[in-house]
């Protein structure tokens, strides 16, 4: 018994010591160890296939890809920052760049980009702009776009034609007319559009078309101002008129089945659905759907400038090697191969010359839209404001609250949230 207890204690001590050693073990900081690359979702799975070409060019540089689920990636990255456990490079949603630059976690890439073979002006201007952040030394580039994402119309061209419209709507007024006509012919289960209430992007795109969402150097909310109100009224109006069902995406069992069944004619979505539509819609339906740029208030409008970038962390001890990987992934043919594997759209115009993209009608609408994209406000709090904006819109759509009260409440909330930002700005001004 005594021996057993002693043995157990010894084991415990040994294990604790071992664990402690593991803790101090410099796996991550080892300059000869592999590069740690964090990526999200499908892109992480696909990167592994692109790596052999990289290894051929840079033998001796090992890469360890870790896949993060999108729903937890943001938390994990911030936790990793707080815990001093960031990777060397990673894929970062471009709306997260302001946060990480505020944390001073990212390495500026202007010099490296200038010295590489990748031309800066080959990128879609609006997309590259999302990676440029203001600093005390002027605007700097903190990430290189990896793939782009924006929102535009996916629609049933046959239903549109049957309702009397030869081509996709180009202005808000045309869009409303088209949706009304389709609704009338559709009956109980034939809506004009599907706009899931938990997705902020459609409303966001409409808001970007109307004007600024924040005021006073991004330190105060402007949601109760006329610009956002117009967008919100248009958005909520679609639901209140019965042109779109009041539901979240959790309540749609299968959006592709419903699209095929004609439950709705318009769907505001992103590039991944080009592939999904081809894969999941029945063959009879191929050729009866199309894409079109987003209608704006008076004509074709801007849309969201989304996508992911590749960023280099300041804490990395292998910046040279990590940059080589970023550079490799940004080359035109790598981007084209990446597109072939994932369906993600490349951010460089030269990559769009590939037949797979140049001759693909649905993708071409994206090419047009990408020339008309606008960045989100570049502040760390934006992600949170973004979510709260949609919560507010949901309440207005479901008539829980009126638009005027809801936007006033949102502005008050935003003002409170940005109080520290105002304080920091005042402090910086006083220091000067």
């Amino acid at each position: 018994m005594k021996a057993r207890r002693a043995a157990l204690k010894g084991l415990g001590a040994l294990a604790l010591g071992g664990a402690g050693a593991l803790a101090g073990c410099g796996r991550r900081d080892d300059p000869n160890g592999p590069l740690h690359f964090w990526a999200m979702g499908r892109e992480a799975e696909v990167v592994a296939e692109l790596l052999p070409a990289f290894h051929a060019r840079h033998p001796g540089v090992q890469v360890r890809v870790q896949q993060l689920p999108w729903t937890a990636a943001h938390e994990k990255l911030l936790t990793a920052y707080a815990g001093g456990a960031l990777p060397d490079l990673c894929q970062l949603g471009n709306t997260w760049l302001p946060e990480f630059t505020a944390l001073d976690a990212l390495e500026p890439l202007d010099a490296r980009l200038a010295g590489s073979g990748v031309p800066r002006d080959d990128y879609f201007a609006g997309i590259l702009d999302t990676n440029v952040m203001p600093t005390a030394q002027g605007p700097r580039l903190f990430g290189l776009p990896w793939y782009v994402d924006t929102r535009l119309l996916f629609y049933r061209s046959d239903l549109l034609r049957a309702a009397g419209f030869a081509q996709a709507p180009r202005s808000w007024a045309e869009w409303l007319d088209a949706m009304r006509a389709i609704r009338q012919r559709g009956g109980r289960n034939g809506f004009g559009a599907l706009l899931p209430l938990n997705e902020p992007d459609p409303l966001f795109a409409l808001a970007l078309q109307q004007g600024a969402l924040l005021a006073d150097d991004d330190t105060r909310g402007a949601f109760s101002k006329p610009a956002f109100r117009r967008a919100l009224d248009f958005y909520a109006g679609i639901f209140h008129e019965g042109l779109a069902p009041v539901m979240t995406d959790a309540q749609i069992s299968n959006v592709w089945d419903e699209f095929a069944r004609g439950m709705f004619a318009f769907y505001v979505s992103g590039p991944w659905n080009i592939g999904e539509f081809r894969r999941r819609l029945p063959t009879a339906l191929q050729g009866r759907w199309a894409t079109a740029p987003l209608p704006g208030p008076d004509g074709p409008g801007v849309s969201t400038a989304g996508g992911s970038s590749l960023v280099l962390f300041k804490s990395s001890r292998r910046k040279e090697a990590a940059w080589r990987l970023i550079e490799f992934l940004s080359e035109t043919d790598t981007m084209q191969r990446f597109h072939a594997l994932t369906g993600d759209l490349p951010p460089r115009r030269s990559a769009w010359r590939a037949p797979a993209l140049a001759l693909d009608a649905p993708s071409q609408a994206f090419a047009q839209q990408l020339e008309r994209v606008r960045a989100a406000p570049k502040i760390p709090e934006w992600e949170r404001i973004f979510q709260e904006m949609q919560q507010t819109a949901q309440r207005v759509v479901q008539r829980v609250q009126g638009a005027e009260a809801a936007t006033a409440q949102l502005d008050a909330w935003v003002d409170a949230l940005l109080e520290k930002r105002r304080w920091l700005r005042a402090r910086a001004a006083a220091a000067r």
Partner: protein
Amino acid sequence: MRKTQLVGWALAAPALVVIAVFFALPVAAGLLLSLTDFDLYALADLSTLRFVGLQNYARLLQTPLFWQALGNTFYFVVVGVPVSIGLSLGAALLLNARVAKWQPLFRTALFAPVVTTVVAVAVIWRYLLHTRYGLINQGLESIGVGPVDWLGNPHWAMPAIILFAAWKNFGYNMVILLAALQAVPRELYESARVDGARPLRQLVDLTLPMLTPTLVMVGIMTITGYFQLFAEPYVMTQGGPLRSTVSVLYFMYEEGFRWWNLGNASAVAFALFVVIFAVSWVLLRFDRDPTGATA
């Protein structure tokens, strides 16, 4: 005597040190943290940290989502605890009945959900509650009740979680109540029966009074546990739909680890502690000797 003192301290020391350093100290630090505006900016640059006194708490009281989280949590506690304890009591009474057969087998079966991992069973239940393919709705449809959108309808999401929590936890209290029931001498039941008391009378006049101390203890333990609702909303609903399943701890997790407002998050944690403490204190008035230590 002195030697015993020393050994006593030596033996208790490791555990006490662990609890002091890794629990008491963080709790105290948390209190301090709740008095500052620690956020993302402070994480990057500690010089931006400001001492704000009770401002976090004041702001919290004005945050609608906090009240909603508190309300959701109270809903869960007020409805969930009686459901769970009721089920436990019922099961314990059944197991204790003289006519019950295969008692050990049933006891094990009814207890099994307790030891399972919450995340793993939440995943199972998420599918059992599926609107279209879930077996629960299919069962309801077979008896003519329409399908319920358990996890998508704000009115039904919390009841679904209550149901799930009852299923998972009732075995625990059942075992405790069963032990208490078995401690009641059979002779008392015999004499009551001889006196002509029917089973229901026996239950009300004999069993329940003898069970009261245990029931109070079980009640406090369950209430305290239920206030700490987190894993179920995290896995099954992510706080939705329409924030109807955001519990206080879920709110704290979002504040702290999603938005990195550690000052606010710590304030939430302490607010929860105060609530639990108050509720426990009120309930403890029903029971005067919680440690069982009369020596």
